[in-house]
């Protein structure tokens, strides 16, 4: 099988004064290349922690994690930065665009850290076209609607052609109609480009559209329910 993600016995512990908070407990799973998957679960169940770990923003306390063939557990900060840059595209709930920069500038940002000197502009333009913002390239974030801003964020996530897109509640700050558009955009990118898609969501309607749902409860995968299994869209 062609796995993009192989996670084995991942545990993440936060130390809170006297107590240890186990945000992830012994989580093991694999994700296939090109898969679209949602992560659900009640608030505080560890969804964001899982996303941060899978996205190499944070290292697991213990366990083994192989991302796109590279073992992440022993990497230092700079190597992790490089993995994030090349293999992961993040979409955040709160867009996280730099207000100083135009849409184009924001989308170019990951390329700046790739050591790429030529063709950045063209690639950023192509990414913005792919999310349907061809005529908003020189707008700054505050000149764009919420949905458009999130589209810029999606363009930024795909500009470096990553192995996977990780979206942590990408529709949380949008109304349902616009939110649906963003999810549709992410799903279509997943289908057309074969980029693995992982969405954290509270919305069952969104979860329904992905091939698989991982449910978390208290930092553990709730294996009693595995929805959508086998449903290929």
């Amino acid at each position: 099988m062609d796995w993009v993600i192989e996670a084995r016995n991942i545990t993440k512990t936060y130390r809170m004064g006297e107590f240890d908070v186990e945000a992830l407990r012994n989580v093991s799973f694999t994700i296939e290349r090109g898969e679209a998957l949602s992560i659900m679960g009640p608030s505080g169940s560890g969804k964001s922690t899982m996303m941060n770990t899978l996205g190499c923003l944070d290292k697991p306390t213990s366990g083994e994690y192989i991302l796109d063939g590279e073992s992440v557990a022993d990497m230092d900060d700079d190597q992790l930065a490089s993995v994030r840059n090349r293999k992961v595209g993040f979409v955040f709930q709160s867009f996280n665009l730099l207000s100083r920069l135009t849409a184009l500038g924001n989308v170019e940002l990951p390329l700046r850290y790739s050591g790429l000197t030529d063709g950045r502009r063209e690639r950023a333009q192509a990414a913005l076209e792919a999310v349907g913002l061809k005529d908003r390239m020189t707008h700054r974030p505050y000149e764009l609607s919420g949905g458009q801003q999130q589209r810029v964020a999606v363009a930024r996530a795909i500009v470096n052609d990553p192995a996977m897109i990780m979206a942590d509640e990408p529709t949380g700050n949008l109304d349902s109609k616009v939110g649906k558009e963003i999810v549709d955009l992410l799903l279509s990118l997943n289908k057309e480009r074969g980029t693995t898609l992982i969405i954290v969501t509270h919305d069952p309607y969104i979860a329904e559209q992905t091939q698989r749902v991982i449910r978390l409860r208290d930092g553990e995968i709730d294996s009693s329910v595995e929805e959508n299994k086998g449903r290929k869209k």
Partner: protein
Amino acid sequence: MSFTQAVFEALESLNGNKMRSGLTVLGIVIGVAAVIAMLAVGNGAQASITGSISSIGTNLLFVFSGPPPNGPPGPGDQRSGNNERPLTLADAAAIADPFAAPSVESAAPAIQGNGTITFAGENSTTTISGVTPAYSLVRNLELAEGEFINEEHMNGVMSVVVLGPETAEAIFGHADGVVGETIRIEGQPFRVIGVLVAKGGGAFGSEDNAAYIPFSTAQARLIKRASRDEIDVLFVQATSAESVPLAVDEISNILRQRHRTPIGVDDFTIFTQQDFLSTFATITGVLTIFLGGIAGISLLVGGIGIMNIMLVSVTERTREIGLRKALGARKRDILLQFLTESSLLSLIGGIIGIMFGWLIAFVVGQVAAATGNNFTPIVGTDAILLSTSFSAIIGLFFGIYPASRAANLEPVEALRYE
């Protein structure tokens, strides 16, 4: 990220907060401008003093009564003890003897005092010097009109005076056509026999503001000294600049013999132009360092301003830093970004500061010129290099802490920061 890119991005971000960047830059501008201006004033003062000392002639020596200020102390605490004798006209004559002192061209004794000169209700206080005819030779005095004091005036103890152009101006309102007038010095009538050519400021007060009378007349009527032939200072001209050290030796030997002082307990002091130069160089050097030091402190304060602003900026942009890290920025990328910003702040401040300091120095020079002072501040390349590198170092030094704080933020924490 490449360097030019980092600079471009830093400019972009500084431009995003113009007011704040401007005020931070202002701190550095003031510091650098102060350093440049202070050093320029210090160097200018040094050059002007050096210039005026040089203008008195490279082969001129001064002999004073009394032991050298930093010579070996005499018996007891009285330096040369009770044996101290004043310089006399006879000493001057001995030194002027070409056989005893072959390196001495001529020697001009003088006594000096302050006096009030009056003419038709106008009065002016100036230095009155009792001099011999040799004085005009030794000091290279030129006459605009009339003649200088000669042997006849000396022998006749005549009441004649040669005026500096400034003094003439002060009492007559003009410096020409005054020969033949009678003025009063300390109430006594003197006939003006000559007026000197204007020379500009000198190291020992302006030579233009002076009055010269025959030595004999001064001694007899105006500037009384303990004995008839006591003198205050002896101006000696060496045969050439190279023979100055020889002349010093010859004069010392003559005076030691004549005053019968024990070895090493001289009761006279010889100053050469070189002595004056090095003394004043020390004084102005200390002055320059002092001024520059004060200005340096303001540059330091500017640097602390940079650090302050960078810390605020790092805190404000915590989320941005988190985002950049999420997108693949390494520690050194973030470090470079913030260091570039702080260095640019200080570099821009440095450049504006240099121009501003130059302007200040120029204005000071103009003011000095307008008020008739012979003084030009000098903006040296050393001052420019010093303050540029100092401000660059300050930008780096005070930028390092905020930048490393930014670089070491945990991406997850930074992204969560509100």
